[in-house]
């Protein structure tokens, strides 16, 4: 079987359009994960023991079960309880929650790396807990967390093909459709691989650059 350049050119627009969807899915999923992950992390630091306990159990549960099961669960079990979600919405909820669990651990590590003396200095100048987090603790928790956050950004991107199982029109789904219609899988699958490779490598570089920039901007070497 030889590489067919005409076929490649023909399917390229479709594949690029699907790449856009893949990036959108990864971006939205990550945004959800970033926000909910922070809530998970902060919930485990409140004086409310019960909230800490429940959050820790949820995080542990999510981390111990496969993503594909969670996606199926939200998409197919939801309707049995009257919760009808589109593939996109179900996929974003599942992938967002899944990565929120992982990101919460990254945040926790970052927050715990901030020395106790910083909290005490905040008490001494009488900042509120909110002000302490927002102005002092989270900015210092960020640089050590960036590398881990970046790893999960690449990971979520590489996990988006799983969304094809519920019919989200991302890159994998497009490659399957194109391949099925033309009985040729070499070109579409190779293109998926190359696209993933290029974007993953570029992101990894961008993340390293971003980490260095943030450290410099915050005056921390």
């Amino acid at each position, binding site marked *: 079987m030889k590489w067919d350049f005409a076929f490649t050119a023909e399917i390229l627009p479709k594949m690029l359009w699907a790449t856009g969807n893949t990036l959108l899915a990864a971006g939205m999923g990550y945004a959800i994960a970033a926000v909910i992950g922070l809530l998970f992390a902060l919930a485990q630091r409140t004086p409310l023991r019960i909230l800490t306990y429940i959050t820790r159990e949820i995080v542990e549960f999510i981390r111990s079960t496969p993503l594909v099961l969670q996606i199926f669960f939200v998409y197919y079990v939801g309707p049995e309880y009257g919760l009808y979600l589109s593939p996109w919405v179900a996929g974003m909820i599942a992938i967002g929650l899944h990565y929120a669990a992982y990101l919460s651990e990254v945040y926790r590590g970052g927050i715990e790396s901030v*020395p106790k*003396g*910083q909290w*005490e*200095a905040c*008490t*001494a*100048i*009488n*900042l*509120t807990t909110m*002000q302490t987090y927002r*102005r*002092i603790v989270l*900015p*210092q928790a960020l640089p050590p967390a960036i590398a881990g956050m970046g790893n999960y950004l690449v990971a979520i991107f590489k996990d988006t093909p799983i969304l094809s199982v519920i019919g989200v029109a991302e890159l994998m789904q497009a490659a399957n459709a194109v391949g099925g219609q033309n009985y040729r899988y070499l070109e579409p699958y190779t293109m998926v691989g190359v696209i993933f490779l290029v974007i993953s490598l570029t992101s990894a570089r961008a993340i390293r650059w971003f980490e260095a920039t943030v450290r410099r901007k*915050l*005056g*921390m*070497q």
Partner: protein
Amino acid sequence: MMEDLSSYPLELGGPNIPMVRFMKVRKSYGDLIVLDNLNLDIAASEMVTIIGPSGSGKTTVLRMLMTLETINGGVIYVDGKPLTHMPQNGVLVPADARYLRKARSSIGMCFQHFNLFPHMTAIQNCMEGPVLVLGLSRREAQERAEELLVMVGMIDKKDQHPSRLSGGQQQRVAIARALAMRPKVMLFDEVTSALDPEVIGEVTNVIKDLVFKHRLTMLMVTHQMGFARDISDRVCFFYGGKIEEQGSPAELFSNPKSKRTQQFLSAVKAAD
């Protein structure tokens, strides 16, 4: 068992209300009693120094007053009002977070390891509290911060991050940051202990300035006996979580009465 707090006044009255009063204060960590029945008054504008061996509870005294530690018994009053407790239905109950936040606003503290915010410049460190807590405009906060940085001799470095400053410089910025909150009481916990010997003077000079030119109430822990002698109105020697002996620097350093004080002072002298 909850302590019966009904014998403690809701407010201190009468003439000569102390700026700070520790009244029968007890502090323990689990079984370890760190401070037992501490009674200590500090008058307005008084400079009181605490000395004593390591582990005698000196830091704990300051941390309780800064509300970094809760206490297990007794009451602390600041400016006549309870700090650790609040009045409720005519008796004192342990203070809640809201009350504490208001009550601690008259206290400022400098730490052994400075604890400057590393992601902010010197002047930003000094503006953060005034803007967020006191509600000053950025402009007013900046003016106040600049005045204080001039006072501690750090105005040239106002736009530097702490990582670019020496220990002595960081500690001077930390003093300015605390003063920017206009506290009535300043606490210094071994602020020169982490410094190289050649820069200790630049920090002690700033504190001397404060003592002689400003009418702040101060409570200081230090291992520098010469410095304590020069600037204190009163020196308290702590031993095993109690005040073993206290008096004017002249009395305490030249004519210590307690055997333990004598031993401590001669040990410190021998080490110098």
